[in-house]
Structures are given as structure tokens and as C-alpha cells.
């Protein structure tokens, strides 16, 4: 056992040693690194240490292949609504998700909202992220963008929330009021997929917050303790295992291209998430998400 551990440690070490830093910048919000590791190109928001803090990675040999489980889970939101015509993505990163959605649904209108202009620059320069009329980036705080879209009565068939860094949560994107604004921009067939943490006290408060706004939601999680993706739909008939099963049949092949295993995604869905329901929902008046996230579950 010890030997195996040693080998693992050595392997990880060699991975670190092989990594080559291509780009480094201090943006208004964070440090940004682009690191190359054999064929893997990764975007990181903190000093590349031994543990992986990558926000986004791209396989240069197969750019459409998803490298992270959480992006695969987010992509699997199409198993709930297989034909989204308008998609809103909060948090651009390396542009993995908009690139994949644009590839799969060339006619869908995709908008990515990113607060940090430096991240968008890196996505364009290093991650082959291409902006087109159907694949736009808005540099703005997500809360503001969604609030403005709600005022204009704009609706989306798919909203992807992926704005949490590896160790920082924008607290104004955790509250009941924010989720109510998100609900306002969902179309009648609209689906929400939200990528979040699952291993701290924040988990309970977050679950209570989603329950207060959405009532029923599903959770997708491939391994215990890793990221969880919260899934919700405005249309009750879509947020239904039979519907998801049908779409697994329908889209399974297509999703293979992005290395999204539809069967696995289906198996990873929990239709009755449990949490400590006495945890207080977060509101604009009370939102200590980062403090809660630092506490044991």
C-alpha cells in the first residue's frame, strides 16, 4: 500500500514538474495562470501547487473532450431539456462549456457572463474560444446582467451557474433573491444547472436556499465529496427521471464526443437530496457563504 502511495505521489510530482507556465497575469480579481502539461492546457486562479486548482482544462489533441467531471455534469443538463435555443452561462473560465454547447447546438444563442475581462482575454488567446453572433461574452457581474435581462423579459432555456472559484464564493450569487431573479429568466421549458461545493456547512444552507426558491430540485454527483450540480426545471414534466432516461437514449451518442457518459450521468442523479433542513436559507441580508464554506459539514 505504501509503495502504491509513493508511486502516486511521485507521479503527481512529475506532473507538476512537467507543467510549463505559459502565461501569468494579475487581474483586478485574481492571479491568472495558464499552464501546459503535455497536451493538457489549464487555466488556474492560484499559484500552481501540487494539488490541482485548475478552473478549466483543455485537451489539445481533442479540444471537445471535457476534462473535468463537473463540466460533464453541467453539460448533462441537456438531458433535461434536449433542445435549448438560448443558453446563459455564468462564469466563462476557459470557455469549455460555451464552446461545447456551441458545437452541439450551432443555432442556439449562447451568452456567457464573466466578471473578469482578463479571463475572457485568456479564453480567446489560449483556449481557442471564438466569439460569434451566437456565442457571445458579456463582461459584467452576473447578478447585474441577470437582473437587467429579467427587466427586459428575456428568457433562457438553459441557465448554467458556474461562478464559484476553488476557494471563493461570490456571496451575492448565493441568495434567495438572486435565485428568484434567475427563475425569472428561465423560459417555461427552462433548466437551471448550478455547480457548487458539497463538503462544508454551506451545503445545508445552500440546499435550503434552493428549496425555498425552487421547491423541488435534483442533484447530480459522480463521487461523494466532489462537486455537486443542482438541477431544476420550470417544467415539472422535464424534471423527471423518465424524461431524462429518454434523452439519454436520444443524446447518448452525441454526448460521447464531449466525453460525457450519459448513462453515468443518469445514475449519478439523486432525486431526493437530503440536507439539514433547519439550516437557514441565505438572503441578501444574511449571506456568509464563505464563512460557512470554511466550516465542517
Amino acid at each position, binding site marked *: 500500500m505504501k509503495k502504491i502511495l509513493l508511486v502516486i505521489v511521485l507521479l503527481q510530482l512529475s506532473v507538476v514538474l512537467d507543467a510549463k507556465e505559459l502565461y501569468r497575469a494579475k487581474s*483586478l480579481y485574481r492571479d491568472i495562470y495558464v499552464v501546459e502539461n503535455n497536451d493538457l492546457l489549464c487555466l488556474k486562479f492560484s499559484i500552481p501547487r501540487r494539488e490541482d486548482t485548475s478552473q478549466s482544462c483543455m485537451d489539445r489533441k481533442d479540444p471537445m473532450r471535457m476534462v473535468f467531471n463537473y463540466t460533464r455534469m453541467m453539460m448533462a443538463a441537456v438531458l433535461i431539456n434536449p433542445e435549448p435555443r438560448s443558453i446563459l452561462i455564468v462564469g466563462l473560465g476557459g470557455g469549455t462549456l460555451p464552446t461545447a454547447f456551441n458545437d452541439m447546438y450551432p443555432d442556439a444563442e449562447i451568452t456567457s457572463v464573466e*466578471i473578469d475581462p482578463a479571463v475572457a482575454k485568456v479564453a480567446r488567446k489560449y483556449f481557442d474560444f471564438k466569439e460569434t453572433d451566437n456565442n457571445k461574452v458579456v463582461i459584467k457581474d452576473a447578478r447585474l446582467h441577470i*437582473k437587467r435581462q429579467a427587466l427586459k423579459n428575456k428568457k433562457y432555456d438553459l441557465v448554467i451557474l458556474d461562478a464559484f472559484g476553488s476557494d471563493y464564493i461570490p*456571496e451575492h450569487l448565493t*441568495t434567495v433573491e*438572486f435565485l428568484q431573479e434567475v427563475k425569472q429568466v428561465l423560459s417555461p421549458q427552462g433548466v437551471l444547472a448550478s455547480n457548487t461545493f458539497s463538503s462544508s456547512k454551506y451545503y445545508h444552507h445552500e440546499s435550503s436556499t434552493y428549496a425555498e426558491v425552487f421547491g423541488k430540485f435534483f442533484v447530480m454527483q459522480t463521487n461523494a465529496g466532489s462537486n455537486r450540480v443542482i438541477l431544476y426545471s420550470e417544467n415539472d414534466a422535464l424534471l423527471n427521471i423518465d424524461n431524462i432516461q429518454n434523452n439519454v437514449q436520444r443524446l447518448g451518442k452525441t454526448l460521447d464526443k464531449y466525453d460525457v457518459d450519459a448513462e453515468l450521468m443518469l445514475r449519478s442523479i439523486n432525486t431526493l437530496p437530503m440536507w439539514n433542513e433547519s439550516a437557514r436559507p441565505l438572503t*441578501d441580508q*444574511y449571506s*456568509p457563504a464563505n464563512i460557512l464554506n470554511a466550516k465542517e459539514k
Partner: protein
Amino acid sequence: MAFTMGFVIMSVEMLGGRILAPYFGGSIHIWGSIITVFMLALAIGYALGGLYSRSEPDIRKYGVLFIAAAILLWIIIFFSEALGDFVFLRIEDERAGSLLYCILIFFLPTTVMGFASPYAVSLITTSKETSGMSAGFLYFLSTIGSALGTLITSFYLVEFFETNTIIKFCSGILLLLGIAAILQHRKNE
């Protein structure tokens, strides 16, 4: 009292980020607006307080300033949401919007809190020789208060209380101190 005023100023300033975020986001601009307005309001408060302190300063008037600040803090409690919507609907640019919003909700209470500072210096200064020492001591107390107000609010208070509850608490302390100062003044007479 100077300590508490320092505490309240920074406690409210820290909460500013939360009050603004729903309307103007979490970008660096909102901190620019908050800090600018607080500094500006304090500067104007200091200047006015300095001028006013020349005319027979006494502890009763100092207490009245605390009560005024306590009342003005309720602008934030009562109107922050309505004014947030108001500005958000009219101004698209988040820099201009957040700056205007900060002026609307923070300017008056912070000016009055700044006003109290030179007033306190004039109250405890007994002679020209010791004026530097008095001012230094007051700055010390109020800035330590500010440091603790920042720390305690951001590390602990936000974990347990709603933003408005914390502001009500700040307002309550200022009110009590103001009343105490006025009673003290009566007793002295």
C-alpha cells in the same frame, strides 16, 4: 465614545459591500464607490465639525451628534432597497450608479459621524500645550474602534446577523451613548 464612533463607521462601511451587491454587483468598482463616499463624507464632516467646535463646545451637543448619527443610520435600514431599485432602473453604468447610491444612503450618516471627531478633540483639550496629545489619544481610540469594527463585523457579526440587524445594533449603541452624554451634561450642571 470616540472608540464606538470609529467602530460604527467601519462596521457600516464593511456592510456597504453587501448592501450594494444586489444592485451593483461584486466588482471592484463598488468598493471604489463605497470608500470614496465614506472618505468624502468624513472629510466634510471633519471640516464642518472643526468649524462648529469653536462655538462653546459641550458634551450635550456632542451627545446630540450621536443621536443624529443614530437616526440617520435608519436611512440605510429603511431606504436601501427602494433606493437600490430606483438607481438600478435609471442608471445602467454600475460605476455611476453605485457612486450615486452610496451618496444617497451613506453620505449623511457618515458626515455626521465625521462631524463628531474634531468636536471631541475640542471637548477634551484643556490647553494649547496638550492639544496634540489629546488629538493623538482620540485618533488612537477611534482608529482602534475602526479596526475592531472592520474585523468583528466581517469575521463574526455577518455570520450570525442580518445586515440590517447589525446596523440597528450600531444605531442603538450610538443612541444610548448620545443619551448618556446628555444626562452627564445635566448632572454636571
